[in-house]
């Protein structure tokens, strides 16, 4: 078959959603952000809600999410995305508003904004990409950094005695009545990505039904920050991150599992 035949629409089994721009991703090869971006945009596209969706980008590796997502987006100050999203959804209650945040942004500097947006049950979706490290600033310790994990600011490994334990944000916010859906996924295999997409779809459906806040965590790798090859980082994530940050639903339809 000729190449031109292969790329004919009827022969395609998969194509990039038009809601992802053609701007080359700024993420390191092997990073999970690109897949996570794509899944969010696929869901928005398939639900036909792009014209009514407003995204809020964080500070962190995904600060430039607005370069890749072909929808209206606002870039928030570090950790403040849930407050920014609150400002939008309260004044545009019929819109779909989501934040896309990393662990430093959401679980450290933005803890207050996260907890209170969740507690108020803002009718938004929070997409939380957790790779246990500060990627953009060069691999420093995050609130989700695992015990003993080496980073540039925990060069001898995270010491629980002095730094506390890694925070399980999704379990934490699931206990707040305002949170309608809390779930944890991964995107390193097709199977996991499909599940994550299903969860994202449910989250945006919840917005449509005005059910309150949906919190979708995606446990991801940071091969650069972890100083591993992409494949090794995925293996390390499976062996070390998943036992602590267990995948699966934590709260569904307002009920804890």
């Amino acid at each position: 078959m000729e190449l031109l035949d292969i790329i004919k629409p009827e022969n395609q089994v998969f194509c990039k959603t038009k809601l992802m721009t053609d701007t080359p991703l700024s993420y390191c090869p092997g990073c999970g952000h690109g897949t996570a971006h794509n899944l969010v945009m696929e869901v928005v596209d398939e639900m036909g809600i792009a014209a009514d969706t407003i995204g809020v980008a964080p500070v962190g590796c995904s600060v430039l999410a607005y370069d890749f997502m072909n929808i209206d987006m606002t870039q928030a100050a570090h950790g403040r995305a849930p407050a920014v999203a609150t400002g939008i959804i309260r004044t545009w209650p019929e819109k779909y508003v989501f934040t896309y945040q990393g662990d430093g942004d959401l679980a450290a500097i933005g803890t207050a904004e996260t907890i209170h947006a969740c507690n108020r049950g803002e009718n938004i979706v929070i997409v939380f990409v957790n790779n246990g490290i500060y990627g953009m600033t060069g691999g420093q310790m995050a609130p989700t950094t695992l015990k003993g994990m080496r980073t540039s600011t925990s060069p001898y490994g995270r010491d629980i005695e002095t730094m506390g334990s890694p925070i399980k944000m999704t379990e934490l916010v699931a206990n707040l009545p305002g949170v309608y859906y809390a779930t944890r996924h991964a995107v390193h295999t097709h199977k996991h990505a499909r599940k994550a997409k299903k969860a994202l779809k449910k989250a945006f459906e919840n917005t449509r039904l005005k059910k309150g806040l949906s919190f979708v965590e995606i446990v991801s790798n940071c091969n650069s920050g972890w100083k591993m090859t992409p494949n090794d980082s995925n293996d390390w994530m499976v062996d070390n991150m998943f036992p602590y940050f267990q995948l699966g639903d934590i709260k569904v339809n307002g009920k804890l599992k």
Partner: protein
Amino acid sequence: MAELKLMKGNEALAEAAIRVGVDAYFGYPITPQSEVIEYLMTERPEERTGMVVLQAESEIAAINMVYGAASSGKRVMTSSSSPGISLKLEGISYLAGAELPAVIVNVVRAGPGLGTIQPAQGDYYQAVKGGGHGDYKLYVLAPASVQEMSDFVEDAFAIAYKYRAPVLILSDGLIGQMMEKVTLKDQKERMTDEELINKYDDWATTGKTDRERNIITSLDLQPEKMEAKVNKLVKKYAKMEREDLRYERINCDDADYLFVAYGSSARIAQKAIELGREKGIKVGLLRPITLFPFPKQQLFELADQVKGILSVELSAGQMVDDVRLAVEHKVPVEHFGRTGGIIHTPEEIIEALEEKIIKNGIIRHHKTRESSIL
């Protein structure tokens, strides 16, 4: 209907917010401005106009809610007092950097630190010299009456949308807490969502339709582009100076001496003018209504007429720097002000004029400025 009422400054401001058709207010309680959010919560503006009022978990959250609503084109405001404004500065810098229209109100109390809850004007530097990080300025309106607390809400939004920039109303605990007559304007309709989208479709994040996507950000990692962004802001501020400077001249025409004072100090200085003139001292007042832009040229020209200038503020001496820069050493410029929440009396002001300017003016003019704070 326009109506005459007796109101607190903070309440008049809150009522004006409803009447001029503000879409949302996000705030956090702090003395001496808590009446703003208390009044709004009591008035149920969601029923009167559909205005959203929300008590945030912190001043930081409140200013970022403002950022979110402003980024999607809504007319939005917040208010706080000094320590709370310090917390908002990150968000204010982002608003300026992302070129978002919003109104922020500071009902100033005495500092530094937790300070005290009584009135002060010690946030002048913070208001006009940036405050937050980076090369930005705020358009700053300084009300001197309850009427202006009411009127300046609409004026502030007009400027905020003219320039797509944050505007600060720099009030103080005295103006916020005192009661005066105020004429309230007629109720204006809030803009509908359709009107808003038509008007701000070239920048506001209201959802990408057939147009290019709108992005609100203050980030630009390319130095040349970032410099161009800063230059755009600089041009905006220059235009504010050309087109939207506001000030008031009181008894200046025959004045031998001049007070420069804004807000509550301007009120007290007016009484001091009466006392001075009874004593035969011909003194006038230049009241900056906008602190940025500052009436530099007007002061430069008045310096040719008067023998000396006393800058009067409830601070250890902040605006006096700008007065001196404007006057360019033509005549002596001194500062007088009380701090710690103490409000100066008209008598103290006249006494300060006599001591610091009239008696010692010529000699002090040539002295160094090191003792100027005292």
